[in-house]
């Protein structure tokens, strides 16, 4: 049962990513990205990372994807008038590098599985929620990165507002 769910959500993830790659319409690509991100969240649940799955849905689907949609809408007028053309050699090179890297990684994982299967075994879904451990670790062992990230988010948002806004701009 768990295996069937895993295959369904894994397929959703990979097919959504392929949709991002192959859709020529940017809006359809963003919707494919939505499917892929939801699939990744489901895989997190199957790996026993419940809090991380909720975080993934809230931050990516609720935040980043909405930002991407806004970006598409704000740039749509210029986007649809131009058909992006790219050279044949560069297309070929892109496909070659991507598929070659995947073959390389695939063979590496197969070999790793053959050498040390105990490294890849996992017993999951038999433990309670991870939220207490994560919260405790965030406030004790990982306190410094947590605070630094808070400052980083503040700086990034101020920078985003400054760059995107019309502060000090003569004409729009």
């Amino acid at each position, binding site marked *: 049962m768990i295996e069937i769910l895993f295959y369904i959500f*894994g397929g959703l*993830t*990979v097919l959504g*990513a392929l949709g*991002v*790659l192959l859709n020529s319409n*940017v809006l359809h*690509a963003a919707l494919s990205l939505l499917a*892929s*991100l939801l699939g*990744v969240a489901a*895989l997190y649940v199957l*790996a026993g*990372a419940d*809090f*991380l799955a909720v975080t*993934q849905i809230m*931050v*990516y689907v609720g*935040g*980043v994807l909405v*930002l*991407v949609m*806004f*970006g*598409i809408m*704000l*740039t749509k007028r*210029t*986007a649809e008038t*131009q058909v*992006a*053309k790219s050279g044949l050699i*560069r297309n070929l090179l*892109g*496909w070659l*590098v*991507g*598929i070659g*890297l*995947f073959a390389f*990684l*695939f063979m590496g*994982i197969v070999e790793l*599985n053959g050498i040390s299967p105990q490294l*890849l075994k*996992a017993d*999951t879904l038999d433990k309670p929620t991870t939220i207490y*451990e*994560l919260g405790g*670790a965030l406030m004790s062992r990982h306190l410094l990165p947590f605070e630094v*990230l808070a400052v*980083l*988010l503040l700086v*990034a*948002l101020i*920078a*985003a507002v400054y*760059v995107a806004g019309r502060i000090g701009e003569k004409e*729009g």
Partner: protein
Amino acid sequence: MTEYYLYIAAALFCIGLMTIMLRRNVISVLMGIELMLNAANLNLVAFSQQDQQFHDGQMFAMFVIVIAAAEAAVALAIVLKMVRTFRTTNVDEVKSLKG
């Protein structure tokens, strides 16, 4: 079971890389970056299953998610500025840093 996570993450990473290399629309390139970040997170979570006590992999993945959100905000601000300045969303046509 973990190796299937690794296969999916490898596929996700390569598809993200191909999206960055093949698509010319700047927002498509950003979506490819998000896919690659998700692939890295998937690997971290998959290996974190063996760490039942500390969940350091999940912690790292959470930090990566926060960094990705900050990156998306700044990148889309730059995209808006670029569209306003150059009147294009094609990354090949943007040839000067001085706006």
